[in-house]
Structure formats: C-alpha cells, structure tokens
C-alpha cells in the first residue's frame, strides 16, 4: 500500500514540479493543476480516518513530496482534512484547508499559516497541543526563507476540535519526512553534478576532496532517512513524541551539513536562481526551524532522559527498535 501510493504520487510530482512551476509558486501562484491532479486521485482525503490508508502511507507520500519540493502545503492540507473531518462538519472537498499556529495571546490571529491566502478553512494548533478550527477573514501575506507562503491570518468562528492526536508532533514529523526526501534529492543533484562537471580535464567526481564531501553527505542523508522512518514507525506508541524529537533533531543536523557541502560541490552554478538546487536547500533550511527547531525537540527529549536518570538512559535508548 505504502509503496503503491508513494509511486502514484511520484508520477504526479514528476510531471507537476518542474522548475517553472516552483518559480511561479514562489511568485505567489498556487499550483492549481498539481492540486487538481492530487485531488482527482484522492490524495486530499488520504489522511481521513476511513480512507483505507495508514498515517505511515501519508508520511511516505510527504517524503516523496519533499523529493520534488512540491510547492503546496500538502502535509497541512491532509492533516487539516483529517482533523476537520473528525468534526463531522461539512467535510473536506477539493478546496484547500491548511494548518497554522495559534498565537499565544490571541486566538483570532494565527501565524505561519502555509498558503493561508488560498485556504477555505484553517486548523490552528496551540503550543499546548490544543487544536481549533477557524474560517479566514483577513490575510497578511508572508513567506519563509524558501519563499513558501507562511501567512498571518485573522480567523473567525473559532471552535475547538476534538483531536486526540499529538498534533505538534505530527506536524514536526511531516517536516522531518519532507526533509528526508529533499535531502535525497540534494544528494542526487550533488552526485550528478560532480560526474558531469569537468575541471582539469576530468569530472570533479574524480577528485578525492569532492568524493569525501559527497560520502559525508550520503552518510548524513541515510541517517536522516532512517531517523524519519523510525518516528513514522512509532506512530501511536507512547514514545511517539520522543521518536519525533530524535528524528527532527537528527534530520535538522543533517540539513546544515548537507546543504553546505552540496552547494560547495555545485560551485557558482548552484548559487544562481536559475539552478534548481536552491529550491531544495532553502526549503531544508526553512523546514529545520519550522514545527520546532532541533534545540526545541532536543530539549524535550533531553528532559525526559534527565528525569529517568543516568542509569536508565541506556534502557530508554535500547528500547527503540
């Protein structure tokens, strides 16, 4: 199931995430055709409790979306539909719903709302994990450092949703899974460019300095992928938040090293807007800070281990399989 859905999604992304579409999205143009194709294939409903798909399938698709830098808020759309659907209200349609953060002191102004400007309904997640539904009335546009819309939205008709899930951890895991996918793509781009770019009469891949950078990158990318998979496998377990913490932390550390090294491999070409590399590296840099930075999640995991005490640390680590 997981592989089938991921493959189907990959076919759509491969067609609909060309450089021009990524560029246009950054200019504020919603990728309507991409969203339409995803909806025609039922992806917008896949996180609904009765969809037949598991949450693990959803994260597999999000990882593929990351590989293609799919320029729409897929994680938020799927999770919003999941959480709104449980409300039993008017139900999801092809209209875009999304998920933002409830401002600490004001439950009518939500921030960091991906594509809030294009959304019909918005789910707001509070710091303490509380989940609310709201309808947008006014939008102040803003973007993250990858140029992805992260709007401030004034909402009305706010009502709490009966969400029994750890929404902040699921959102953080979405970023980890997307990043794991984008990291794979960045590694591929680095290998491809090193084999194709010639200097001193041979591909730069023949130089040991370049080989060693890319070997380090491959190791980081593999670690990020494994960490993300492990957290997905822990969905529903009592350790879930801590597994997400480990994943978000490990993936975030990989991002800094990988983006730096693969830009170095690409030379000035990778520093141009014309090259596609930045669509992936800028997203990676943005995503590592969204839904809780490494430090946030490390501290959450660390407090748990400190509470257990030094002589229980190993037992905690060895219980993860």
């Amino acid at each position, binding site marked *: 199931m997981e592989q089938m859905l991921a493959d189907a999604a990959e076919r759509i992304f491969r067609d609909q995430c060309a450089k021009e579409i990524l560029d246009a999205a950054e200019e504020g143009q919603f990728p309507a055709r991409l969203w339409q194709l995803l909806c025609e294939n039922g992806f917008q409903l896949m996180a609904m409790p009765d969809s037949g798909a598991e949450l693990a399938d959803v994260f597999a698709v999000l990882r593929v979306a990351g590989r293609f830098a799919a320029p729409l808020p897929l994680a938020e759309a799927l999770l919003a539909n999941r959480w709104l659907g449980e409300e039993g209200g008017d139900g999801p349609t092809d209209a875009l719903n999304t998920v933002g953060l409830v401002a600490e002191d004001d439950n009518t102004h939500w921030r960091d709302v991906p594509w809030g400007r294009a959304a019909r309904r918005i789910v707001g997640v509070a710091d303490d994990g509380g989940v609310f539904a709201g309808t947008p009335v006014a939008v102040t546009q803003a973007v993250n450092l990858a140029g992805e819309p992260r709007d401030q939205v004034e909402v009305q008709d706010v009502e709490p949703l009966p969400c029994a899930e750890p929404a902040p951890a699921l959102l953080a895991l979405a970023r980890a899974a997307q990043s794991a996918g984008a990291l*794979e793509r960045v*590694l*591929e781009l680095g*290998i491809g460019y*090193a*084999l194709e770019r010639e200097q001193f009469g041979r591909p730069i*891949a*023949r130089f*040991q300095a*370049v*080989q*060693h950078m*890319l*070997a*380090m990158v*491959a*190791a*980081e990318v*593999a*670690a990020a*992928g*494994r*960490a993300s*998979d*492990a957290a997905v*496998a822990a969905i529903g377990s009592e350790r879930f938040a801590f*597994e997400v*913490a*480990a*994943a978000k*932390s*490990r993936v975030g*550390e990989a991002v800094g090293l990988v983006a730096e090294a693969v830009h170095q491999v690409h030379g000035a070409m990778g520093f141009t807007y014309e090259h596609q590399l930045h669509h992936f590296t800028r997203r990676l840099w943005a995503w590592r800070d969204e839904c809780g930075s*490494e*430090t946030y*999640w*490390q*501290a*959450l*995991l*660390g*407090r748990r*281990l*400190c*509470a257990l*005490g*030094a*002589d229980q*640390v*190993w037992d*905690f*680590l*060895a219980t*993860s*399989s």
Partner: protein
Amino acid sequence: MLQFDPVQLPEGTEALRHEVRDFLAANADRISAPNSDFSSGHDAEFSARLGERGWIGMTWPKAYGGAERSFFERYVVTEELLAAGAPVSAHWIADRQSGPLLLGSGSEDQCARYLPAIVRGRSFFSIGMSEPGTGSDLASVRTTAKRVAGGWRVNGTKLWTTGAHLNHYMIALVRTAPAKDNRHAGLSQLIIDLAAPGVAIRPIRNMAGGEDFNEVVFDDVFVTDADVVGEPGNGWSQVTSELGYERSGPERFLSAFRVYVEFVRLVGADPERFEAAAVGRIAAHLMTLRRMSMSVAGMLENGKAPNVEAALVKELGNNFEKLLPEIARAAAPSGGDQERFRRTYAETLLLSPSFTLRGGTREILRGVIARGLGLR
C-alpha cells in the same frame, strides 16, 4: 541510493537482554571502571564467564561449540556489554572477526581446533594487518612467509597489534609470493601462535598511558601448512571481506557512551534548557545510529554483503564517538559532583584519536562510500 531497512528485533531477544543485564549486575565487581571502548578492558576471567553463558561465538555452528543464534541476538549481547562498559577486549577480536573468518575461509580442521576454545572464552586472537610501512595501503605488507618442508617460515614486523602481549594467536596477512603486476595477489593469511619460538612482542605505550597495542617481530617463525587460512595467495579477498562485514557493530558508535551516562548524572533531573538539549542531541544520534547498525545486522542475517552500508555506519558512528565528548563538555555544568564525569571524559578523550583510525581510517571509508555512490 543506500537503503537501511527497518528491522524488528525478534521475540526472545528482550529476555536475552535481561539475562545479560542480570549477568552484568552479578559481575559488577569486574566493571569497577566502566569504559565502553571495546579495546580498553582485557579481562580473561570475565571473558571465560561470558563463554560459560554461551555468549561468545553465539551465531556459530553447534558442531564447533556455537549456539547457532541469530545476528540480532549477538547484537543485543554486544550492545549490552558495551553500554555497561564491561571489559570485553580479550575475546572481542576472536568473536567478531577471527572466528567468522575461519568459518568462512578456514578448513574444517582449523574450525575444530580453534573455535571451541574461543567459544569457551579461553582462546584470544589478535589482528595482524598493519606494519611499520603499511597502514591504509594494506597490500604493501612486507612480512613474508617462505615455503619450507611442511610449512612456512615467517619474517617481518606487525605493528599496532592490540592485545598481542596477552592473546594466544594472531591471524597475520603476509606475502607468500612476490608482488608483481597485481599487488593483491600473493598475499596469504596465517594463524600464528604468539608463544612460538621467534616471536618477540614489545608493548607500545599510547598517549593515554595505556599499553594495549604492540610491535610484534617474527624471526624465522615456523607455521605449519595446516595453519594457512584458505588457499595460499587468497589473502586479499579474505581480508577485505573480513574488514567489510565487521565495520558496523555497536562498538563503532558506543565507545564514548559512558561519558554520556556520567554527563546525564552530572546534569541531574532538572536541567537548564541548553543542558537538556545537549542530552537530547546525543540521544537522537544514538537512537539513529543504533537503528542503522541493526539494519546492517539484518542484511547480514539475510545473507547479504552490505560493505558500503557498513562503511557508512562506521563513518557516522566514529565521527559521533568523537562528537559526544565535545557536546557533553560544552554543556557540562560547573557545579555538582564532577569527579566521575571528569575522569570518564578525560579517559575517553585521550582514546578518541584512535576511533577514526582503527578498522579502517575515515579517509579509507569515505573512499569505500564514494565508490558505492559511483564517484570512482
């Protein structure tokens, strides 16, 4: 793209884990200074007790004293021993490397003669690869074995031989035919009795003050034909597979683990945010490395040859072993009972240069990974 599939530890491994913990608690007197570095504590008595429990050579055939248990069960035993900082160095190489080499390439006679004593924790082996002029460029070994009646005469010097002054045997890579166009040809592996006439062993003090590794000089040492591992001349392919498969175990990322335990103890139950983040950061690395290492164990269990994946785990794991004391040091509070943390930290830091050298340097491993990526 390199794939590390999730593995689930089979049922029964948790019971085994608790057996090992009970054993460690009962033998706490032999772990007075816990150190997770696999080459630090040489304790023949401890190894013999492990042997009695059936925890050495546990994946090997019953015909040779083994228990025919899975790679996962061996994984659980080794990680528990290392995490507790138990002295495992005496039997480590024989269990991890020499035994599997004999099972894979040795004769039935060799297996029958050597494996049962290894399994009982009574027979210890050293690795004879490096030489004064030979480190990463292993094919350049100059120790020779010349044909004589009934066997071979060995001359030359091996270097950095961990435990040679305490162990019983070395499996040495030697040149049995001169190097020609193909420098990988003409190499052979011999089992050498370290008590044989003509063997001179001189311990070399390391920068931490310890004497774990040695220079071993062979002066006309006789080795019988029966102690040549595999066919003469086949040494290179044997030695590379030996290195390849054994690079990804928990000893490749747990060497500094006791520093972490003492760091958490020092930080206490109510940490500052940056202290908690340091604790969590290390945990995130450990959880991920452990899973990657288990993924490789799963590939071995399925009969695959994950050379590149193993090199990758070692590369990540060794770098992390060096990073761990740095993270802990930077975040360690200045108050509290410092003694245990400071001692463990200093001991590990002084050993840490070896982490990215032994078993293949970081540079050699990156070359292996780069080849796997199609870059060379």
